[in-house]
């Protein structure tokens, strides 16, 4: 983990209200060793408003560059969207624990909704590099707001997409169940939707397939000091999303 100023190499729309920011650390050291599911805390103003950094998952790490894909939802991300290419931000990265692809897994399913697909793209890249077969199930409220599908299919991920406005993703969820019963996945990762999380939890309960979820909560520090980001877990204790997560085994999280 380190704090570094980074140059914005690219900051462009990749879907509706969703931008991709490609960064290069000014110290030139890149983020070698960063794992899918880890995140960074980005600060993009010198003033005190917005006050806090914003947590963003790593979308890709490649050589000395790294990228995030973010949805414009409020003041902080609006400011990020206005940052010029060539400008700079300050990041603390990499943070948190990444996904844990079981070494012996051959068939990996990635289940994401909206911008929740962002961290799954980095995970797909890693899984494919390890020779695994990767199945992507990605949904969004509209075709225009699907995230990562182009990059995923370029990598050779076997992709299914779904579009629905209410978050039900019924057809996609049915499809995952069908695929899993025809030929089981041996690892499932999810992010971005409660319903998808519940499905992965159900699969885990019914068939024992290990599943992990990347959680998002409000954060102030991202490094475990403020205790602001907690979730209640199945064992009745609060866990910090930033340093205990953001990736958790699905059975640990209330559906």
């Amino acid at each position, binding site marked *: *983990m*380190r*704090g570094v100023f980074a140059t914005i190499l690219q900051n462009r729309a990749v879907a509706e209200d969703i931008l991709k920011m490609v960064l290069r650390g000014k110290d030139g050291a890149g983020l070698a060793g960063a794992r899918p599911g880890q995140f960074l805390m980005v*600060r993009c103003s010198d003033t*005190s*408003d*917005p*006050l*806090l*950094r914003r947590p963003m998952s790593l979308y890709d790490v490649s050589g000395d560059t790294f990228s995030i894909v973010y949805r414009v939802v409020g003041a902080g991300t609006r400011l990020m969207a206005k940052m010029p290419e060539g400008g700079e931000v300050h990041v*603390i990265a990499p943070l948190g624990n990444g996904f844990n692809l079981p070494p012996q897994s051959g068939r990996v399913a990635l289940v994401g909704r909206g911008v929740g697909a962002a961290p799954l793209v980095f995970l797909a890249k890693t899984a494919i590099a390890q020779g695994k077969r990767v199945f992507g199930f990605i949904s969004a409220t509209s075709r225009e707001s699907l995230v990562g599908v182009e990059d995923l299919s370029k990598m050779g991920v076997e992709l299914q997409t779904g579009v629905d406005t209410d978050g039900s993703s019924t057809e996609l969820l049915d499809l995952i169940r069908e695929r899993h019963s025809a030929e089981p996945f041996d690892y499932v990762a999810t992010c971005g939707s409660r319903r998808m999380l519940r499905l992965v939890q159900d699969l885990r309960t019914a068939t024992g397939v290990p599943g992990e979820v990347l959680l998002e*909560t*409000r*954060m*102030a*520090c991202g*490094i*475990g*000091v*403020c*205790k*602001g*980001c*907690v*979730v*209640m877990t199945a064992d009745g*204790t*609060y866990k910090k999303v930033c*340093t205990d997560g953001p990736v958790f085994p699905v059975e640990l999280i209330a559906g």
Partner: protein
Amino acid sequence: MTERPDMSVAIGGLKLRNPVIAASGVVGYGVEYADLGVLDCFGAIVVKGTTLAPRAGNPPPRLAETPSGLLNSVGLENPGVDAVIREVIPRIPRTGARIIVNVAGATVDEYCRVAEKLDRVDDVDALEINISCPNVRTGGIQFGTVPETSAALVEAVRKCTGKVLIVKLTPNTGSICEVAKAVEQAGADAVSLINTILGMAIDVQSRRPVLSTVFGGLSGPAVKPIALRMVWQVSNEVTIPVVGMGGISEANDALEFLMAGASAVAVGTALLRNPRAGLEIVRGLEDWLVSEGMDDIRAVCGSAKAVRP
């Protein structure tokens, strides 16, 4: 090399190498920031509020950002004093920064028992008695809002420890000066202020308060003018040292608090957005002294109060 100015200050009997302290609750247990290499600059670090038994803290959401401010309702989540002594304090990197433990509780007895236990720990240099946490219903807040109960608490804790005793005051009272005078009388070696200011935020979409506890404590630049005013007032009323805090983000803010009468300053929320804030403030203060031709930081304390010719 030119001579650097003398940055050391004293809080009661406790000598700090410089007047910049990492505030309670924002450096965790000090180990986390070590990775970022930004801890060794401080004069002291204050460990998160510690209670007798472990506390789980409040349900999420615990954070809400407001204009230049942060509302939190963490609620003194901590593993309890025994675990802090056994597991936390030994892990704090010893960098020359003093270690102060922030003590909280629900009853006089609880404060006393925590203080007794910490009194026996060599690595603990001072205790900061938190009579002011707004996030625990039974918490110190009743103590900290009333001069008489504050004094009774401090008197009792004073008997349990020979360590330097700093009492942390709440701004959520109409009588902060009276409380300060009362705890001075009761044996406090110093007072620190301010803790967070009670506030709230509402999510208009869901029509619900953002924080699970409805109210939380406001910190950050938004509170600075209020904090500064209180430091000015309290330092007029007591003779013990005052540790000033509330929204300090850069050297200039720290100078304002020192000039208002603080002997030392603490930095909290600013570290969340800028982990290097402590380092930058220490350097900034030194540079300022040099540029003013001054050789001792203590000369800044209260200097804005000097009668002008």
